[in-house]
């Protein structure tokens, strides 16, 4: 690791202020940042420790939703009684990620901002537009098993690797961001992460001088919740494809279908048109395929990850089939 100075940020606005300096990084659980610093992918000269800031609580919001502080650990969120009761898709997504040891350290803010697991991104002797703008993308014609099939660009085909944010997209949660002057803004999780386009180094909406303070969940959405994650081993692996779903079926007809997908793109993939195909229609395999067609209409594989296209179709079908069975 390159030498750095470690400071403790006294407040969220101070932390936000510190990030004005391009060589400063916020550190929360450290499970992603330190990993990348050891590999010299990240070489900050200053770390601002935010782990002790007063953003580690889960509280009810006035409208009956839930506010999850940026420093709440993934464990604390997943075991929270209201998350288990009212937002099981979120508890399931978190529990399907990483391991207990990592989830005990990982935080809401850090999880949202975790970087891609693209092999070339983590090897500093390899060309990578995300790490080293203009150097090229090694993955497009290289090892690309984990890579995206939706929303790619000729600059970068990396995926956002997390699980938590996929469930938060299905739930239409909101990210709260504090600016250096102490004012707050909020962005829907669905819009927080960006597609790579011509600026693959920009992964999310956060600008310099900003810090995430919380994520809020809307009032309980009801329905049956599913998080189905397909990976190379049954635990402790990133998603090849994942589906987060909040489903309501009445009299054999879909009345709610909020669907978000992980492992397919540079962001959790949410497209209202996918669920819209299902609404008001009787559930059958042909209908599931129609929804998958909408999801995958622009899908493009890069050789090694071609399998993700049929896998996404099958995983969506499996979730919907399960939902129909459970509703019967």
């Amino acid at each position, binding site marked *: 690791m390159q030498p750095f100075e470690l400071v403790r940020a006294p407040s969220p606005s101070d932390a936000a202020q510190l990030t004005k300096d391009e060589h400063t990084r916020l550190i929360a659980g450290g499970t992603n940042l*330190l990993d990348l610093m050891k590999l010299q992918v990240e070489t900050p000269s200053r770390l601002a420790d935010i782990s002790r800031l007063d953003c580690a609580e889960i509280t009810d919001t006035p409208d009956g939703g839930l506010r999850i502080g940026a420093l709440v650990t993934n464990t604390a969120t997943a075991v929270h009684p209201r998350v288990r009761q009212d937002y099981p898709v979120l508890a399931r997504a978190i529990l399907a990620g990483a391991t207990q040891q990592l989830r005990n350290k990982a935080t809401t803010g850090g999880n949202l901002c975790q970087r891609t697991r693209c092999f070339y991104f983590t090897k500093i002797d390899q060309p990578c537009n995300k790490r080293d703008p203009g150097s090229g993308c090694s993955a497009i014609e290289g090892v690309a098993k984990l890579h995206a099939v939706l929303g790619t660009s000729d600059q970068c085909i990396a995926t956002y690797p997390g699980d938590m944010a996929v469930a938060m997209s299905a739930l239409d949660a909101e990210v709260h961001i504090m600016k250096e002057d102490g004012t707050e803004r909020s962005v829907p999780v669905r819009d927080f992460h960006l597609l790579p386009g011509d600026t693959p180094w920009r992964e999310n909406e956060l600008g310099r001088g900003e810090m995430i303070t919380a994520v809020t969940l809307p009032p309980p959405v009801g329905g049956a919740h599913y998080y189905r994650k397909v990976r190379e081993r049954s635990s402790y692996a990133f998603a090849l494809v994942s589906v987060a779903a909040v489903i309501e079926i009445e009299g054999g007809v879909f009345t709610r279908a909020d669907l978000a997908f992980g492992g397919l793109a540079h962001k959790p993939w949410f497209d209202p048109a996918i669920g819209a195909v299902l609404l008001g229609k009787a559930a059958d395999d042909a209908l599931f395929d129609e929804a998958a067609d909408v999801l995958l209409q622009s899908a493009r594989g890069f050789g090694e990850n071609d399998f993700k296209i049929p896998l996404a179709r099958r995983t969506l079908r499996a979730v919907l089939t399960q939902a129909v069975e459970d509703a019967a």
Partner: protein
Amino acid sequence: MFKGTIIAKEAAKGFEEIQDMAGTIGINGTAHSLPADPRTSLLDFLRHDLGLTGTKKGCDHGQCGACTVIVNGMRINSCLTLAAMHEGDRVTTIEGIGGPDAPSDLQHAFMAHDALQCGYCTPGQICSAQAMLAEIAEGWPSDATADLTSEATFSDEEIRERMSGNLCRCGAYANIVAAIRDVARGRADATV
């Protein structure tokens, strides 16, 4: 369903004596000054600075669990955290769980069940299992728990999922599960 007592009790174990922890980190009941170089991971601090070499470095990237220690009652990977960020925290390592003279129930069970070959992953497995039993007692669910709103139940499937953060290159998994199962039953019997 949402307790909070056992983990806290676990964290306090052996630390009753330490009062003022400013500028220090508590390791197995003793306060130590924080390292001067902020780059020092908790793992390197334990092994290099304090000579507590029971905790092992497998991958140094959060991918194996050999470095698992218990901080304030929670198991974490000591390779992916900075010692300097743990001012006032209470760390339990394998040395704090037990040694040859007085092995803990888990250490006994690992020996009795031959739950190791080379033994490199064992300290991490035991620290992890120690914390895991407390997590089940708290009713925390895992990915293997069928009903998120009911009490967590104990099964081999639950052990495997909850211990998935500790890899064993020698593949002693079957006996590791057997050792933990035994201890869980023993502890349950002891509290009846």
